[in-house]
């Protein structure tokens, strides 16, 4: 047999092994014994390049053997299920029975959602990736400046944020303050930042919000967590 014929044969074996390894198909489709016999054939006649290919194919067969071993282990375990039998079983059950079987083994996690800097970073990433689209309602693309401001805020440490919250809280006196005057107090550059920090104060119940939809005005005031009603307000800035 010529070297090119050997190379072709080796390539075919290697390709089959690749299919099994990459596509997660049944590793027993590779006949290991036969493949090894073919790789051994004509070893003395192969040129250097074909020998390297031979070695690479041999390594792939070793990997397939490991997969076969893993497969045997799984089949021997209690969790092994034949895919076809499982499908037949699933088709034979109505939705209620399926749901009931699931719920018998289901114990949901008790968790409390909250806004964290991590969430804000995620949201920022989302909005930044939508830069070329318009914002709903506004009809305009988000300004680069706004996103830059957010980009400055998000790497902030919790401790810095706490400091900024304290600072803003001290600016709010006893009476009602116009929301837009308050967030825009230090100019457009700091507007988004102040609104974000203020939203954290609102979330903690330290600042309350009153809206007058007729006059389209929004006021904020100092509050304590126990005095504040829980509701969500979207305030455009």
């Amino acid at each position, binding site marked *: 047999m010529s070297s090119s014929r050997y190379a072709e044969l080796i390539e075919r074996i290697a390709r089959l092994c690749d299919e099994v390894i990459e596509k*997660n198909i049944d590793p027993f489709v590779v006949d290991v014994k036969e493949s090894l016999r073919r790789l051994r054939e004509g070893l003395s006649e192969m040129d250097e390049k074909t020998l390297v290919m031979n070695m690479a194919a041999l390594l792939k067969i070793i990997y397939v053997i490991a997969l076969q071993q893993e*497969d045997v282990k*799984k089949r021997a375990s*209690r*969790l092994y*299920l*034949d*895919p076809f*039998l*499982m*499908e037949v*079983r*699933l*088709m034979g*059950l109505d*939705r*209620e*029975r*399926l*749901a*009931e*079987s*699931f*719920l*018998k*083994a*289901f*114990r*949901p*996690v*008790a*968790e*409390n*959602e*909250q806004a*964290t800097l*991590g969430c804000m970073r*995620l949201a920022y990433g989302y909005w930044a990736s939508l830069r070329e689209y318009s914002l709903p309602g506004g009809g305009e693309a988000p300004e680069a400046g706004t996103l830059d401001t957010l980009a400055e805020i998000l790497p902030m440490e919790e401790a810095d944020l706490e400091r900024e919250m304290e600072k803003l809280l001290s600016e709010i006196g006893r009476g009602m303050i116009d929301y837009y005057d308050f967030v825009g107090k230090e100019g457009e550059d700091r507007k988004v930042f102040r609104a974000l920090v203020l939203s954290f104060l609102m979330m903690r119940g330290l600042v309350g919000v009153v809206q007058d939809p007729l006059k389209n005005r929004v006021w904020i005031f100092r509050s304590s967590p126990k005095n504040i009603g829980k509701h969500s307000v979207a305030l455009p800035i």
Partner: protein
Amino acid sequence: MEQEERIRSRVARAVQLLFFKSHRIPGVKGWELKKNLGPGYLSIIKFLNTRLQDLGLTIKIVSDDGRELSMSEDESRLSTARFYVTLRDELSLTAAKTMGWSIDEIAGLAVVISTIISRKGSAPVKEVEEILKKKFPEWRVRLNLSRYVKRGYIAEDGNNLVLGWRTFAELDVEKFVHYILSA
């Protein structure tokens, strides 16, 4: 008295860590608990667990490879495992509905998870979709699959679907398979 107060504040801190989500995934790693509660963190967790059990909750420990661990497990395994608070008892169908689940959603998830398990933990998306289409309206199949991915019950691995972190945290896989086969 001082000792009692110290324990009380540690238990309170453990509650904060376990219930309030501070990462993308709920729960907290063993090493994080140790860092916050000190080297005796397991005693605090055990004590909290007994209190939670009275409320119908329990602390579940899941290792990186999705196995449930007990509190007597080796320290090194516990430190990389994730601690969750889960319901202790079975949910009724009515209770699940009040939690926002529909029967179709639950049944669909049961089909998806069973299919993935029967295919050795990884099933092609197309195959899963085909099986779902035999039981549910076509428009619902993609929608439900993306919901399951978003909630963490399954994950995409190239063109395949694998079990997600939430399945390991919330489902006793072995029991589930048993219930499906014996239903």
